[in-house]
């Protein structure tokens, strides 16, 4: 076989395109190079069989490679699924470190599987490697800035690390983002909104939380399973009225629903309607421990509330003195005597603003001489001042001074009623 043949001097050459093989200049009609005057050589292929054979080899090569790659991909998919399953099991069994290894192994065989990568970030967060998870999530976000799942995970991560503004930013991005895996994104969007609202409520950012909750209430279907969660958040945010209306709507659908009854009781208690709260609680079976606890709380609050309807002057003064005493005890729990303990606490930095504590100390000193039945009688402004002191002291000591007693809880509830959830 001779695939290429050296033709004679210029024989059969294409004059327009032929180039001299020595100097690459155009070859003239004479078959000699215009430039170097060398004889121009040209190769022509005159037997196509080798090329056809080569084409056949390429076709066979393609088929064989395809066969091998298909079975290889199959094997890789199998391994990826196996390790992904192992990762999920490890997560279910609360072994995040094992899950990280399993998800990483799955990713070796399914390099760009987005779902696997998201799961890996979950495992990383759970195993405490939040900086790695954050780096991964930020990288995803660069690639998919609209992805709601990524933004939501970033929001949770930032919330966990107390980066409030970043967390709120990512929550908003998640709410506005795209949910690629769901045809109807509304439930996911509502869920993201509720999560954001819960975060805002926890932060005590009442107005922002209210905005988000109102938006959720507007788009949440009446029959949605998320209605109790919405009502709960509204209640926690101090909006007892809206919460109560949701519970009442639920009770209109299921009259003796214990959860709705309990919620309605809480809402009415928060609104200061002790009688209504008691009525709702009566509809719940006595063995319901949550209801029993609320009943006790209701009794306590009612027993401590000097502003409750149809309260005599004597009872009002007694309740005021009791509240003052409970608040002082609560402050003393932060260190006794509390005025000195405030100073030492300020030194250690354990209980926040020292000026606040010294303020309470001065305030208590001023009020203490007035805390007798005689001095309080008929002096509503002193009662008001003493109750303000008691409620503010309970709020200030809420997270810094140890376990709450039932009385403290009752006073806090009163504080929320009178001052709002943001206090």
């Amino acid at each position, binding site marked *: 076989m001779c695939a290429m043949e050296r033709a004679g001097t210029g024989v059969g050459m294409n004059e327009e395109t*032929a180039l001299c093989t020595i100097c690459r200049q155009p070859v003239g009609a004479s078959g*000699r190079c215009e430039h170097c005057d060398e004889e121009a050589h*040209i190769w022509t292929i005159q037997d196509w069989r080798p090329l056809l054979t080569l084409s056949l*080899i390429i076709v066979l090569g393609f088929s064989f*490679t395809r066969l091998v*790659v298909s079975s290889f991909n199959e094997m890789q998919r199998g391994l990826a699924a196996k*390790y992904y399953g192992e990762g999920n099991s490890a997560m279910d069994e609360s072994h995040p470190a094992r899950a990280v290894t399993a998800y990483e*192994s799955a990713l070796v065989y399914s390099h760009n599987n987005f779902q696997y990568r998201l799961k890996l970030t979950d495992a990383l967060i759970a195993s405490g490697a939040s900086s790695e998870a954050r780096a991964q999530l930020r990288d995803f976000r660069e690639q998919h800035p609209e992805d709601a799942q990524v933004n939501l995970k970033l929001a949770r991560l930032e919330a966990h690390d107390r980066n409030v503004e970043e967390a709120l930013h990512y929550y908003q991005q998640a709410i506005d983002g795209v949910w690629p895996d769901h045809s109807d994104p509304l439930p996911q969007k509502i869920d993201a909104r509720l999560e954001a609202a819960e975060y805002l409520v926890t932060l005590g950012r009442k107005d922002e939380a209210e905005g988000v909750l109102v938006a959720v209430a507007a788009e949440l279907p009446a029959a949605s399973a998320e209605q109790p969660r919405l009502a709960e958040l509204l209640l926690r945010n101090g909006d007892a009225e809206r919460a109560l209306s949701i519970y009442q709507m639920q009770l209109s659908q299921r009259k003796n629903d214990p959860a709705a009854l309990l919620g309605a009781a809480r809402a009415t208690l928060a609104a200061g309607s002790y009688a209504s709260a008691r009525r709702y609680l009566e509809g719940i079976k006595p063995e319901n421990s949550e209801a029993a606890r609320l009943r006790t709380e209701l009794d306590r609050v009612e027993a401590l509330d000097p502003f409750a309807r149809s309260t005599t002057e004597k009872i009002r003064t007694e309740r005021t003195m009791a509240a003052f005493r409970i608040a002082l005890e609560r402050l003393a729990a932060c260190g006794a005597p509390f005025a000195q303990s405030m100073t030492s606490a300020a030194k250690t930095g354990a209980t926040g603003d020292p000026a606040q504590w010294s303020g309470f100390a001065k305030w208590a000193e001023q009020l203490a001489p007035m805390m007798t039945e005689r001095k309080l009688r008929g002096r509503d402004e002193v009662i008001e001042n003493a109750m303000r002191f008691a409620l503010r002291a309970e709020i200030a000591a809420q997270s810094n001074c140890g376990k709450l007693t039932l009385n403290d809880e009752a006073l806090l509830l009163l504080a929320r009623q009178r001052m709002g959830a943001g206090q």
Partner: protein
Amino acid sequence: MKPRTERSRELLTKLMATPVRRKYFETLRRMLGPSGLVSIREEQFFLVLAIAIGLLAGFCVVLFRVAIAAARVWLLGSALHPSTTRLLLVPAVTGLVIAFFAVRYFPRVRGSGVNQTKGALYIYDGYIGPGTSVAKFVLSALAIGSGQSLGPEDPALQIGAGLASAVGRWLKLSKERLRLMAPVGAAAGVAAAFNAPITAVLFVIEEVIGRWSAGILGAVVLSAISSVVVERWFLGDEPLFRVPQYRLDHPGELLAYAVLGVTGGAASVVFVKIIKNLRPWLRRQPQWSQYLQPGIAGLLIGFIAIWYPQVMGAGYEWVDLAMHNRFPWEVLGILAGLKLVSTALSFATGTPGGLFAPVLFMGAMLGGFVATVEQQLFPAIAVPVGAYALVGMGALFAGILRAPMTSVFMILETSGNYSIILPVMICNSISYVISRAFQEVPLFDLLSRQDGLDLPSLEEEPERALLRVEDAMHPTLGRALLGDEAIGSARGIVASTQEANFLVSLGEGRWSVLGREALLNPEHNETELVRSLIRARVPRLYQDQSLEVALRFMKDRPMLPVVHRANLDLLMGVVSVEDVLRAYRKAGVAEPETAEVS
């Protein structure tokens, strides 16, 4: 059973049963047959062949990558972190098996394959034995799959070159074309292995061909592209690693990158020095120890891998993680150092496998390390770890493999982000300069010299002074003769000088030379034209052409005209063999290196 020829004839008779079919067959036969009307010229055929080579090399490299992955699963298990027993046993035992075949039967598969391909191009007329290619495929897949710290790109280069060589020999190509087949296949191999055609083309030019050659560029580009098409068809167009977004916010950040350039240069020098000393030392050991060396290297790497499994294999998955800030600074530093040691062990013991991937691994880890340290020292400066890892890869590539163009374009091609070009160029330049300052000979040249070969190097090429025609030519004393003037007129000019030969301008840039005797021969009538005495034309030269080119055209001609490029009839001077030799003597070069004609 009828013989095959008879059966073929019967089939043909059946096929050509009708006149219409016969007509079509006849037309086809005339077109394709030995005296066919359809014919393509050599250059065109070579380009078509380059595409075919690219496709075939693409298939081979896809299978090679599958083989590496399958070997990894088969030998080390499918889990990301293999068991300690496997880590200690697999690389060691596989190393012994590989050494047996490599030392005893296929000595040319040892090492990366770049020098072997270069050797095929410059020494063996493009010949790479089929056994070598097959053994390279199998043994490299086993070596990398078993965890030796080597990469698939350089073996893919040799496999591609071997395939191209086999096809060229099968088609009985001329020696000249066969020689060029090796780089064409090499480019296809690297392109498919690295999923980066531009990088592959530049790498082959810088490291295999060793010089810029326009003649082969088209074929190399076509083969690289077609192999990448195949690779992406089968394995997808996902990049080897996910490159994070990068933006240069302030020019001051470049100073921080310069630190990486210095670190990369230093690491490059250390790595090359280790290879430079360890490889010949290991080769000087008794012959029997050659069978053990890859196994021992495997054992040591397996030992390291008990704590740092990242050092095994090519390690692209870890590069990806480093780019995404998954390792703390101390781990990045340790991985860079351990990979350097592991790769040096694997490579110096002659285990088949490439340096491309380990160099990138080291660069990424070093880049990440510098970035995380800078982050802690200068928190005010924006130090994106991913970008540093990427730039670090380029810096190590430029420093160790000394392929500066490839190192820059590789980063651009893999990142697809041109914002990173400034840091890359700065880092690579610093690393390259440091590497050159402390290690004069590039790594691949060093290896070929250790193997007793002296192959051309692109890095050393420009340093040799290039002598041009203008350095040798001398001006003409009088005017050139004209083809259309009468012999009588020309004799007047001839008589006025003592010159033995005279240039004749024939118009339209054509020239010839006539001797004094021919012009003064009384047999010729004075009224005849000088043109009538011309028997052959001579090539013309330009002032900027090299003296090597002038010598090629000189042959036994007494002189050649040097003309102006814009006016081919304007004589700038003449040059003779004596002029050329005088120029070489003057420049201090005894004679041109004929093998280095540019």
